[in-house]
């Protein structure tokens, strides 16, 4: 139970970052941190006590395996995270080239 609480605290740190930070890069960083916490919650859900990694081992017959479904979900979600971060970085560097700053309020004032 404590692990899940710590994961949700990490999620809240990311949420705090997205809502309060003014720097484009730091908003992207806090979005990634939120993603990390959700990946961890998903893998923790699928963990089974003294289960082994989900690679079939024909030698040992009655072996408990960890649940492969959350791992497949997290693998997909990691690549989604990479896609969103790449898009955010593309826009961040473009805005930086135009406004010479990463600060979102500064950009709004300069936009005029």
């Amino acid at each position, binding site marked *: *139970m*404590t*692990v*899940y*609480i*710590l994961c949700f605290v*990490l999620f809240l*740190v*990311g*949420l*705090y*970052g997205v*809502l*309060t930070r*003014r*720097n484009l*890069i*730091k908003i992207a*960083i*806090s979005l*990634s*941190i939120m993603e*990390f916490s959700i*990946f*961890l919650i998903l*893998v*923790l859900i699928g*963990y*089974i006590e003294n289960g*082994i*990694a*989900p*690679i*079939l081992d*024909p030698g040992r017959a009655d072996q408990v*395996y*960890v649940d492969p*479904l959350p*791992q*497949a*979900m*997290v*693998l*997909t979600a*990691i*690549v*989604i*995270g*990479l896609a*969103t*971060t*790449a*898009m955010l*970085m*593309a826009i961040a*560097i*473009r805005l*930086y080239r135009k406004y010479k*700053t*990463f600060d979102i309020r500064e950009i709004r004032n300069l936009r005029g």
Partner: protein
Amino acid sequence: MELTISIILGFMIIGAIYALHAKDLLSAVVAMGFVGYGLVVCFLLLKAPDLAIVQIVVETITLVLMIAVVLDSTRDEITVKPDRRAFFQRIAGFIIFAGLLYFFVLAIANLDPLGEHSLRMSESYVNGAAEKTGSVNLVTGVLFDFRAFDTLGEAVILYTAALGVLTLLRMKGKK
């Protein structure tokens, strides 16, 4: 098991808080890298080798992209003197987050604790998986056969992101 992961999570939370409050952008990006690699260790502890490989490589590539953006920019941030109003905002935010955490704990109170996960849908992914999909690696079996539609969507997402970055970074938008 739960203790080790909690310790790693503690360090990750400290790293995350530092990443948000770091004065220098580059050290913020490095702190994010630290949180990502902490996640890799958690995946290995939770018996998920597939995810550890993907996460460590994707994290490195994300760091390369972020540092490429941050490296030649002004790395100092416009720091605003926290006046009284920001102080109250911080307290209000803290109270709201404490409430969210309390509801989260209430919500997951009687769900299965760590380790006692019972299978239902993925039971047939594990028993007899070798005959059904022929793949020894169960995660690849789920990804490329049982739920191949997700992986097709996944490849399309990365393709869209590459197309989007190409579109966003072209020099001239309008003729």
